[in-house]
């Protein structure tokens, strides 16, 4: 009896052991256990450049970044607000002690997180452009034409970013690869070399891109968009003849471009004076600019147009009434930029954030002509803008008078658009003269932002720091 029981147990044990061993080795024999799925929300790099939609997305994302977070975005971290405060365009009414206030009072320091963020986001976009350029280069999936157009757009974005960066920081690096080892030790190059690189990128872009707007709307770069930027770049470089040439190209293309006579239509998305604008991400959304500048009741919650700007405008300037809003508490008035008026979702978007428009090209050509002593030509272009604003022809007749008149006109025409005012007073060399009396914290070295301290600490090749920081 006992024996039988023992045997039975033994058989049970063996079965259990067998099962156990099976379970154990069913896993261990399976080398695939450590195979895992690709992460959702991520696409392997190579696959992006095997499909037209994703390859295009790698390029359109560059515009998405510009619209939402890099340099020319319309919200509070874009050039419009930041450099508007830095110049004499905007007054600051927001919370005490934050970066905007430091910017407004010219108390920027080298470790400022906003400066770091401007820098980091700009170079992240440069990396994205470079990654797209390399991905396209290495892909054999697409037609030459498709590839060229995307390449042209990436080069345009790279040039655009560096154009703003060189005007903010002076000598900067110009990365053209995704190789992180090279980029982490990259040297900064002098301003003139940066410009040469920008020109190289833009000229190549211009040669690759077509005449038509790719998607019908004026929201992706084509040859005209590149020309518009080139005109501005040449102007900043003082290459007057080239600036005039590029702006003329655009102004003369009347099939595509013409000035909107009604000031209320200039900033609509269908405006024929628009050369390039950034389309909102969500259907029905409008611009960040409208949301950030417009306020309803006094005092201003964040920023308001400087009263000096309003006072300086001629009393019959139509732009004063059409593009500027006023809020009053009965005794005092505050003003805001009212170029874009749609603060909220409108079902179908009505306004896009405009990057290049025809009026700037007239002003560029006017300035380029004035500097080449083409007084009449300069006056003509200037008067186009003045007349549209309901003003009489300019009284400026000498080159110097014209230059002053143009700076003034640019101030009234382009206020709160991507920091034009700051870049103008900077390149005209009149920043000190204008800001010294009104900003107690102003010093001459504020003409450049500091290179972010964290960057300098990590990459000594970026030394020296800009003076004054």
């Amino acid at each position, binding site marked *: 009896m006992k024996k039988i029981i023992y045997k039975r147990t033994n058989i049970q044990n063996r079965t259990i*052991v067998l099962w156990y061993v099976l379970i154990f080795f069913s896993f*261990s024999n399976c080398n695939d256990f*450590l195979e895992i799925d690709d992460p959702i929300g991520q696409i*392997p*790099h190579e696959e992006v450049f095997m499909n037209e939609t994703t390859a295009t997305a790698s390029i359109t994302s560059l515009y998405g970044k510009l619209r939402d977070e890099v340099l020319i975005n319309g919200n509070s971290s874009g050039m419009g607000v930041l450099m508007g405060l830095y110049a004499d365009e905007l007054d600051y009414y927001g919370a005490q002690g934050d970066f905007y206030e430091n910017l407004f009072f010219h108390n920027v320091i080298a470790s400022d997180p906003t400066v770091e963020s401007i820098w980091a986001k700009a170079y992240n976009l440069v990396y994205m452009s470079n990654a797209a350029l390399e991905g396209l280069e290495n892909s054999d999936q697409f037609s030459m034409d498709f590839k060229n157009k995307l390449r042209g757009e990436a080069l345009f974005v790279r040039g655009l970013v560096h154009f703003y960066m060189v005007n903010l920081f002076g000598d900067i690096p110009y990365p053209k690869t995704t190789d992180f080892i090279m980029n*982490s030790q990259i040297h900064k190059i002098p301003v003139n070399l940066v410009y040469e690189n920008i020109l190289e990128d833009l000229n190549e872009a211009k040669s690759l891109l077509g005449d038509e707007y790719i998607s019908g709307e004026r929201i992706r770069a084509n040859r005209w968009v590149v020309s518009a930027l080139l005109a501005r770049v040449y102007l900043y470089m003082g290459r007057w003849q080239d600036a005039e040439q590029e702006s003329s190209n655009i102004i003369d293309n009347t099939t595509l471009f013409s000035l909107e006579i009604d000031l209320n239509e200039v900033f609509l998305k269908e405006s024929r004076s628009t050369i390039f604008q950034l389309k909102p991400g969500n259907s029905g959304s409008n611009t960040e600019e409208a949301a950030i500048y417009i306020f*309803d009741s006094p005092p201003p*919650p964040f920023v308001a147009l400087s009263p000096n700007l309003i006072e300086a405008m001629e009393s019959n300037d139509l732009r004063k009434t059409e593009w500027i809003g006023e809020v009053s508490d009965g005794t005092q008035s505050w003003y805001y930029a009212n170029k874009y008026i749609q603060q909220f979702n409108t079902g179908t978007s009505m306004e896009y954030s405009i990057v290049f428009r025809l009026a700037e090209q007239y002003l560029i050509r006017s300035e380029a002509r004035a500097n080449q002593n083409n007084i009449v030509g300069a006056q003509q272009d200037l008067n186009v803008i003045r007349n549209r604003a309901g003003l009489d022809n300019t009284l400026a007749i000498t080159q110097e008078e014209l230059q002053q008149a143009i700076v003034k006109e640019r101030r009234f025409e382009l206020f709160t658009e991507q920091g034009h005012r700051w870049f103008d007073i900077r390149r005209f060399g009149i920043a000190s003269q204008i800001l010294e009396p009104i900003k107690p914290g102003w010093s001459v070295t504020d003409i450049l932002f500091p290179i972010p301290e964290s960057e300098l600490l990590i990459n000594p090749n970026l030394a020296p720091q800009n003076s004054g920081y």
Partner: protein
Amino acid sequence: MEIKLINARSNPMEIGINKRLLLMIMRTFIFLLCTTVFSFNTETTLAQEKVTIEVDKEATIDEVFEIIIDQTKYRFLYPKDLFKGAPKVHLKKGTIRVDKLLNQTISLSRFNIVVSIDDVIIIKEKSKQQQQVSGKVVDEAGIPVPGVTVLIKGTNIGVATSFDGSYSLTVLNPENVLVFSALGFAKQEVTVGDKTVINITLKEDVSELDEVTINAGYYKVTDREKTGSISKVNGSEIENQAVNNPLETLQGRMTGVNITTTSGVPGSGINVRIRGQNSIMAGNEPLYIIDGIPFDSQSLGSSISSGGIIPRGSISSLNAINPASIESIEVLKDADATAIYGSRGANGVILITTKKGKAGKTKFSFSNNTGVAHITKKMDVLNTEQYLEMRREAFANDGITDYPFYAYDVNGTWDMNRYTDWQETLIGYTANSHKVQGSISGGSEGTRFFINGMYQNETSVFPGKFNYDRITVNTNLQHSDKQEKFKLDFNAGYTIEDNFLPGGDLSYYAIYLPPNAPELYDESGNVNWEDGTWNNPIAQFDNKYKNISNTLFTSLSLSYKLANQLDIRLNAGYGANMINDYVTSPHTAYNPAWGLTSANSMVTTNQGNKKYWTLEPQLNWEKSLGMGKLNILLGGTFQSQEFNQFGVYGIGFPTNSFIDNLSAASTIIINNEVATQYKTQSWFTRINYAFKNKFFLNITGRRDGSTRFGPSNRYGNFGALGAAYIFSDDLKIDWLNFGKIRMSYGITGNDQIGDYQYLQTYTINSQLYNENIGLQPSRLFNPEFQWEENRKKEAAIELGFMKNRLTFSFAYYNNRSSNQLINYSLPTTTGFSSILSNLDAEVENKGYEFEIKIIPLKSKDFEWTSSLNISQSRNKLLAFPNLENSTYRNIYVIGKPLSIANLYNLKGVNPQTGIFEFEDYNNDGQLTASDDRKFVADLTPKYFGGLSNFFSYKNWELDVFFQFVKKKGYNQYRVSEPVGTMANQSVDVLDRWQQPGDVADMQRYTTGSDPEAFDAYYRFVQSSGIISDASFIRLKSLTLAYTLYLGKENETSCRLLLTGQNLLTLTKFQGGDPEQMDGYLPPLTRLSFGFQLNL
């Protein structure tokens, strides 16, 4: 009980009332029953005798016995009423043998029948086979010991010895084992057998260590035999503390374990560092194991939704564990203990064991606690008068006489006579908490169960109705078959947390708001914007944060004893954590001047999901070899984890009342959508050899594969060697009753980096453009990185004196972490700020751990136990190749700890100019960050520890626990604005420079428009001036309890409990609470009163 004794030819005799006598007789009978052979089968005694039945008849059993007595020599002895009411027996006419007749008459299964030598047939009912045992318990000196618990093993039947050491109890059967236990004495077990008197001499407990079983994860070990470094905290120390997160209960209680809270807000994360920071960049989190199954502690929170109120959005998933459901927490520290966890053991292992059911009477327990909580410490800030004086002086210093329009505080816009204590107004409310809890446990030897349920509700210290609710359920089921071959242990816990908080923490505002800032609400109760002159912080409370978390964790352990020495076991576990949270941002939270409407209102949602399972087959073989014992464990681990995160913004609502309905939003933007997998596959082994019960050798090893590494670097090998020698057995010194030295060496790993970091991918983002998806490169990728390795060495000595009333342990450890996985900081010109890679850098953590436990007093009524632990640790960066040219040049210094700050060295305020001056290290006349931030401030704690004192007097218990930390930390100036700007300051700024010649701590006040003073202040906040001594001694917990025993044998008790947490803090630190320096809510002082009813 009455006994019926029937003699031949005599009437039944009634035995008297004297119970003592009766008992004696009973005992004698029982004795007889046990000693006499159950010999009814021995036919020789009864067989020869026959009785004759004359006619068929019905007779009672008693009548049958009368017949037998009449016709034979036999007599009967049995309790009088034994057969009362029994059915009558049918007797047939004829002759029948006595044994057969008895067989017919009474059931042998119910009764024992014994024939004594003198022909008395003794009958006893089997089910009443009780046995009375009595005896006396004395100590080694022969003195009676009162209060000794005498328990029938496996039941809760028992008694306590009386003042003369005697006891008496009834046992159920002879196989019962009596357990004699008393505090301070070694437990003794005696099998009852046939004994009725069991006298015991208790030995004083010289080696309590033997009995303390330590959970080492894959195996258990006694404190005496352990070769590794394992600290243990018992449930009794945890359950009484009035905190939410079980990790908080460990603060200061364990050597080498440094625990800090990130914020006083419920649900916030907890930082745990076991023996310092090993990894420069990868995670330094320990591995958590709950009931044998790894519990992923990584937060499911998203900083986008919860970052405003919970520091870094890091929500501790350990909040799901109810401290009262914990049986014990063990922390594994050295290589010997942690190497079996291989790739994840580098930062230590925290083992949480939940409560289990115990066999015996079903026990019910119910408790109810009510408490209050308040912030620990406020910062001393300027009052209105001092503040306005500061502001006016600042304007005067800057030469500004006309106060600008925006200087609302001093130019008359705001009432200059107002004063608000903003700390009181914004974070100074009293939070109320309420907790009810119930548990049922019990079962038989074979199957035991435990169920615990808890509901908790807690309000916040913020103004407004915010609360944290938690429901937890914990269950345990254990089963073993009769032979104890098959065993099952199942644990399941489920927790629902509902956390409702303001969208942002106002602690920063509470300090820096000007004391004369306007009212929070206007007369009609609306948020007061004071004509848009300030950002009313209370508007932040319109931003609501709501978090619902569900946590399930289960574990099942099945084991089967194949043979005496061989066990197989399968551990399996499944867990799921879910978080759904959102933060609302209604338009009303913004200054109405923006003209916003509900079309601008926004909700940010986040869903985090984690599911994981684990399967661990194991084989355990135990064999005696000569004078030793060998134990071999083999096992494998297969683990898989899936993580999903989904974040959405909803913008624009018809009205704000729909703001928490995402479907009502006019625009929905998907912010992030992430799904990742993580798998590990491992084999492990442990070989343990104990020789003569005094030499111990322990070898552990593990081979681990993890999907966090590229295909070519997936596997790593880890292992350790530990040894211990109990030398006291050989020394035989009277006063030293225990002495052990132990040592260990081994390698563990760390894979705490994100998933998929080795892949080059594009991430899909929400930045749609022209209806095409947004795509951006995910990272700079590196397919080559590998495990981080941690080599740990330890040597320790453990001593016990005076019969272990004084125990002492001392450990030295040295851990070196190499092949560092670094998120190597890069200049952003690379497009990103870092890349993940291995670096041949080495980090050393070494230190001493010291523990002393003493029982100064122990008597019948009074006991005092005291223990002290101190950990001293040094963290050092030993090597960092090419540090000078690396991105870390100005962050780390070779030979210094990792957590340092490189700062300007503040020389003080120049008495002439009134401006801060700093040391110009390279004497170039300029202060540059790279060259002159050379002051190294060490922010690692120098030492820390705890002092615990436990007193009990009769039914009273008092537990007083102090925590202490010696460290330096950032003071109140770190996040401050220049003194004189529109922000309040600590009262320390009153010692300022006012005129040439003044010697002061604070430079001259400035409104910010004096560039020189402004720049100097910004250097000051990056200088040694922001470092202060932040050491503290804190009355961490205090418990006063009174237990009221009720009912028979004290089975029912009611325990009244008064507990406090963070009651008192002694510190020189001026910047508020020394533990909370990030501008978040400081830890809370808690006081709670409750009762616990045990039935």
